[in-house]
């Protein structure tokens, strides 16, 4: 029985070993000259600005929660699909009821526009784009 799942730990171990080996190798042969600039995060060549710890908008949270609800729903579809052939019509009806109830929730949320992505309207040159409005020379580097 464990043999069925043997590939999983093998994959995990292999991936860890592979990455550890690669890192170890580069540690051995690559020259290491650390500096503050090198340690800073890479942002496509731009200068690093501010902290990565910014406050997320609550809309991400709402989307994530809706996602969880429907993921749980999808996960429960798996065992249904497996036993569908044996149980037949009754399982079908049961799943239709289950999905129907959740669909009502989805319709209610959808119709009210809660699935729409709320766009944040920031006028040009304000908020986080404040620096853009200034003449470019004034921005100190």
């Amino acid at each position: 029985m464990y043999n069925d799942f043997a590939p999983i730990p093998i994959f995990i171990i292999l991936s860890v070993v592979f990455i550890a080996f690669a890192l170890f190798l580069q540690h051995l042969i690559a020259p290491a000259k650390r500096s503050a600039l090198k340690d800073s995060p890479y942002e496509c060549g731009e200068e690093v600005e501010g902290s990565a710890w910014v406050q997320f908008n609550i809309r991400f949270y709402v989307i994530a929660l809706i996602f969880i609800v429907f993921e749980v729903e999808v996960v429960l579809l798996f065992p249904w699909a497996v036993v569908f052939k044996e149980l037949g019509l009754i399982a079908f009806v049961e799943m239709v009821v289950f999905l129907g109830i959740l669909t009502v929730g989805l319709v209610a949320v959808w119709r009210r526009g809660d699935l729409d992505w709320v766009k944040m309207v920031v006028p040009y040159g304000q908020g986080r784009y404040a620096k853009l409005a200034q003449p470019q020379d004034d921005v100190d580097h």
Partner: protein
Amino acid sequence: MNAADILSTLPELVLTVTALGLLLLEVMGKPPRARFVWVALGGVGLALGLEFAVPSEGQFYAGMISVDLFTRFFNVLFLTTAAGSLLISVPYLRRTLEERGEYYALTLFATVGMMFMAKAHDLTITFLGLELLSVSLYILVAFYRNRVRSNEAGLKYLLLGAFSTGFFLFGIALIYGSTGTTHYDGIRLAIGSGEQLSMALTVTGFGLLIIGFAFKVALVPFHMYAPDVYEGAPTPITAFVSTGPKVAGFAAFLKVIATAFAFTTQHWWGILWILAAITMTVGNITALRQDNLKRMLAFSGVAHAGYLAIAIMVGSADSAFALLFYLAAYAITTLGAFGIVSLIEGEDESGLDMDSYRGLARRSPYLAGVFALIMLSLAGFPPTAGFLGKFFIFSAAIDEGYTWLVIIAVVNSLISVYYYLRPVVAMYMQEPADESAVAVPAFIVPVLLLVVLVALGLGLFPMSLVKNSIAAAGSLF
């Protein structure tokens, strides 16, 4: 699944469909919001009718639920409470311009949860019913999203409620681990035949279940959330929160103890004895100091949970019947109390202090009369239903030899008279600030009539409820 299964849950199905329909109506192009309450009340009425029209008896859904007189008693009580709370809500929602389909739908969902808690014959259903009830209530408590206190109350309720749910679930897991089943009968058989893995595991699991229930019915020391939640929630929801979970919690608690543990575990370390004594005392003494009516009624609810815990602990047929009688009287009178509080309440949650009730007898004599009756019933004066409820519980406890606990309870009842009479004194013996009569919306009138019928009618002619309670409690034994 077959037709009998569906028939056994017909009232719950009707309520569910009504609630889902309300959710859909709410998102229509132009929601007919003024009619929502009639849809909701229609669903409740239909469910109530089906409860009697299609009676079933026995276990259904592969033993997941059991339906008998006990569940019918509680279903009627739940549906009445739900209808009363819907009626109280309408004027309040219209006054504050918050009448929305979700409100009614969530009230109905919570009612479905309560009904399944009473019908459950398997801890899985007990848990899911409890969660359905709790989650709906978390949302309802925080329903007024632009009120800070409503939000705060909702958050507190959610956090502490989730915590207690964890205890409850852990208890179920331990019981399952020990007995190998979550079915009430299976647990009883495993304990009785000694096939459980270990008594210690079962008892620990049972202790954790007690914590879960104690939170829902607000027993000290798990009552901390009650005053803040009751005060912060919109008043009609306070009426629902203070009755629904309490009645459903005690119903499920009694059924679990009676059928899964056969009244063998509740004496465990005298823990319920201590809980009941502390709960009564803390609830009553703290209520003495409250000036805000909602907080006062919150602590009074805590104290009543203490009296009810006595009935759970005693565990005789008499005490089970007393518990049912007391719950019915308590639920209806408390509902009426909060209904009247919501009428006196002014804009922005003002008018909740004792002073707002000064001279109410001169302003609105009938309203004051009903409120005084409610207070007397809650305090346990004869000839009200509250008195009879206390009398039944105390005499059942004395029969089983719990004299000291009854002495504590009686002393507590005497203490409670003081704070229950404060609003009565204010209404009848003090001068009103203004002479204008309090407007009583038509929606509230049936609730007030029901309160009078229960508090006074059942106090004078209790036999109908007594018979039903005895029959309902009898189906547990």
